[in-house]
């Protein structure tokens, strides 16, 4: 049987002002307890000089509390390295869930890539 698993794509984008490149982790599929490698493994493989990180949830179909816990673990690691994380592409429902859990204290949620990107230089 073929279960929907997590897909991750790594991108580097430049945001308007020509500042430092931004690293984008584009998630797709499900983010659950089975997504350890996809979430934390991908993060750990990033070059240490990646200071601005964007999490793209726009292709995520299913996200549960174990998946959110992995996102929190990623944020803990990033905060230790002084990296800034911004998030976009969450549905209104999961924006609400992230807010309920309090994650918004440590990352900002944006509607789309452009606004998230612009928020780094604002």
């Amino acid at each position: 049987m073929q279960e929907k698993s997590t897909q991750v794509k790594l991108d580097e984008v430049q945001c308007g002002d020509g500042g430092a490149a931004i690293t984008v982790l584009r998630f797709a599929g499900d983010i659950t307890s089975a997504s350890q490698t996809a979430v934390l493994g991908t993060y750990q493989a990033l070059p240490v000089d990646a200071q601005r990180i964007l999490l793209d949830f726009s292709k995520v179909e299913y996200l549960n509390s174990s998946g959110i816990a992995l996102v929190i673990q990623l944020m803990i690691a990033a905060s230790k390295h002084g990296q800034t994380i911004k998030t976009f592409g969450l549905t209104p429902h999961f924006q609400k869930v992230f807010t309920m859990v309090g994650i918004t204290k440590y990352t900002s949620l944006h509607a789309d890539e452009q606004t998230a990107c612009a928020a780094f230089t604002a």
Partner: protein
Amino acid sequence: MTENIPGTIELHIPSRLGYEKIAMNTAASTARMMGFSDERVEDLKTAVAEACINAMEHGNKFDESLSVGIILSMSDDSLEVKVVDTGAGTQGHGTAPDIDRKMHEEEKARGMGMFLIQALVDEAEWVSSPPTGSYARMVIRLHPASEPLERK
């Protein structure tokens, strides 16, 4: 159309991660058929998925030969979902996660399921070890505003 909604819908899924999505979608179809808004349907989906995962993990210890029961009871203006397992149950209530403690690794990153259930539905309770099996019980209402005592 009669006002008297008959019977209930009952679903049984194996205690295997991933299958909670079936329960989540069955609950969603039922809620949609009853006329709940997309927003409430999304709330219920997350609550049902979390309750199923807890039933599989803490209740049935991931024993795939044990199933998780999902019992959907419709009334004119509310939908009750009971998620039943074969374990000893819990009487806990969802306590809000402390994101600062999590970020400082003083609290484990996970442990948000019961809190989310409680926060997303109109009524939630956990019943431990009645003869029919421990369960989490969740209710969403079509017109919660008319029941001010029940509002969160």
